[in-house]
């Protein structure tokens, strides 16, 4: 059934975009446009892979540890990239766009360099052990379409959805979320209200980057099955695009990322098209993002706008 495997594939790939865009939404809600997400995802993935590699070298074969430790190191690595970004933009008040782009350069380079070290070490079973990541979480074997589509994925896919829902609830239903949104909309007002603006910005950036880093880990260890391919930069930019596509709502990012995932893999499921036409179909996610971008700006609805202070640094003594 091509349709079932198409939907299943779309949901699987959607986790990449979901991690990336949920992370970026958290960051953007604090008023920071982090264009370093491709770099963050790359570094997260590379550090995760490096952890698996080191563990296999140290002959640690426990399947629980082989998933858990890379998971944690990826979070730390992603968070660290976030710390670097927030140090630059919050404390040093550097321009957010150039800092993000520099972070992407650094991150993609660093990831490539780390992975070369792994590749030079030869295959010591990373690909075989990657199956721990995409092992069916519910371990149900059935040809039922529902099971195939929704219950056949690895743990990281479900975690992405859980993180997105939790983020949505925190952002819209808790005091912390209210404060974070206030910081992103008007840091001066938030500051006057006694909210620790710097603290919120730092924590949001670090947490968001850690989430985005997981997207990198998922892409390589689950979606690519342990093969390192240089796709993360493109996926990172798509995740940033998805943030606009979903109007800064993590809950909307769940269907949004499935649409992106579907569009990305659609070419492989359409019969009788040429290789050239595949390239045109791959253009769709980008074109759709542009359309949404234009549409939201024309409608100009207040609920569909980016945080008001997005891209602007806050300095208390400035008027």
């Amino acid at each position: 059934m091509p349709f079932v495997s198409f939907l299943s594939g779309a949901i699987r790939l959607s986790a990449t975009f979901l991690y990336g865009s949920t992370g970026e939404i958290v960051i953007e809600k604090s008023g920071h446009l982090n264009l370093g997400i491709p770099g963050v995802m790359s570094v997260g993935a590379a550090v995760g892979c490096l952890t698996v590699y080191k563990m296999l070298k140290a002959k640690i074969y426990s399947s629980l540890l082989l998933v858990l430790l890379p998971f944690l190191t990826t979070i730390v690595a992603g968070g660290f990239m976030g710390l670097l970004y927030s140090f630059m933009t919050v404390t040093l008040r550097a321009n957010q766009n150039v800092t993000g782009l520099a972070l992407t350069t650094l991150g993609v380079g660093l990831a490539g360099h780390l992975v070369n070290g792994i590749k030079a070490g030869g295959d010591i079973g990373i690909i075989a052990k990657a199956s721990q990541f995409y092992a069916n979480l519910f371990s149900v074997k059935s040809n039922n379409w529902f099971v195939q589509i929704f219950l056949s994925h690895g743990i990281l896919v479900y975690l992405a959805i859980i993180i997105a829902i939790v983020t949505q609830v925190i952002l819209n239903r808790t005091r912390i979320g209210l404060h974070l949104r206030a910081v992103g909309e008007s840091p001066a007002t938030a500051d006057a209200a006694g909210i620790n603006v710097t603290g919120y910005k730092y924590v949001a950036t670090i947490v968001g980057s850690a989430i985005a880093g997981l997207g990198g880990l998922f892409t390589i260890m689950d979606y690519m099955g342990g093969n390192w391919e240089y796709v993360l930069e493109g996926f990172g930019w798509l995740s940033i695009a998805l943030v606009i596509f979903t109007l800064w709502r993590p809950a909307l990012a769940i269907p949004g990322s499935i649409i992106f995932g579907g569009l990305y893999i659609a070419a492989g499921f359409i019969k009788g098209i040429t290789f050239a036409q595949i390239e045109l179909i791959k253009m769709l996610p980008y074109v759709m993002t542009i359309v949404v971008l234009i549409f939201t700006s024309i409608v100009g609805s207040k609920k569909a706008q980016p945080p008001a202070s997005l891209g602007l640094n806050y300095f208390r003594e400035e008027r």
Partner: protein
Amino acid sequence: MNTTKKTREPLFHLVKRTDVKPWLPWVVRGVTIVVAFLFIGILTFASLEISPFEVYARIFKGAFGDSYRVMTLLRDVAILLLFALAVTPAFKMKFWNIGAEGQVLMGAFACMFCIFYLGGKVNDTLLIFISLAAALLVGSVWAVIPALFKAKWNTNETLFTLMMNYVAIQIILYAIKIWAPGGTGTLSPSPYGNLPTIAGENFWFSIIVAIVMTAVMFIYLRFTKHGYEINVVGESENTARYIGINVKKVIIRTLIFSGLICGLTGFMLVAGIDHTVSSTTAEGRGFTAILVSWLAKFNPAGMIFTSLLVVFLSRGMDEVMTMNGISNNFFSKVVIGIMFLMIIGCEFFINYKIVFRHRAKSEVVPPAPVEGAEKTCGEDTSDGEIPQATTAKEE
């Protein structure tokens, strides 16, 4: 007791510098670049176990080793400079065009399109002019689309131009699949429509064009009415409107100009150097150019040095890696990323000064501000090390 503690002044606070001495930014940046080079040496030593002096020697050799290397370096500087010049007017206007990559690619695509379909059918000189015209046209169209939406509906240009990059890449991938069917997915270099070489080398044309464009851009931004309007719109859109500048017109006009240079750059890449096109023709330089332009404070003359710095580093590090048997440019990306982050970070010490609690009291004495400025300047090196210390941990 408790209340006095709470109301005590914080240990230090930041003050925006109002009277920046003209020499201060250059001292800070110079010191930062030196520190960054030291750090890069240490980093290379730590990860590749080559002695730092050896690293510097190799970087220098890779960049300036022989006349061929020097010319290649200058050609790469010229191309990066063209990219940077292209993004500059828009950035000066605070229009965040991160789509130079796509605009150049579309220029290159248009140029290759003409060469592919007209090559051998028309006079080669005519073909060069046709492909130049096509590259300029398509490059500027690609740049003006986001500008139109920005002007009309204030559509976010950062993300719009970013997406346009990928649309451009897909168009090129599509075209290559059609032009080179069933093959390796690469288009072999075309013998038609190539720019003439001088003394058998393809360096000169790009270098000459870059020099001319730098001069043109410098004059355009500094001495023309257009340049003045760009400046005002960048400083404050409201002021611009108040003094009767048509902001929408300026945005659209500037982006057409930006796109023209991008188209020219794409034309230089295809007709002058590569004679073919691929999705990686621009090599990410559209993004690097933003940093190059920004580091030079959007001054075309300064961009000569910043692009030289970037190309010098990347070619030099490539040499270091090649000698170590590594044939990719990831490590040079790391090095460039670190250099960028440190220079971006050092701007803080130019724009702000740190006033410590006890020093703040002595500020009542008239000569204190000068002393404070010197003190903070002296601290630059030590504080400037914070970003590199953090990156070091990452390794």
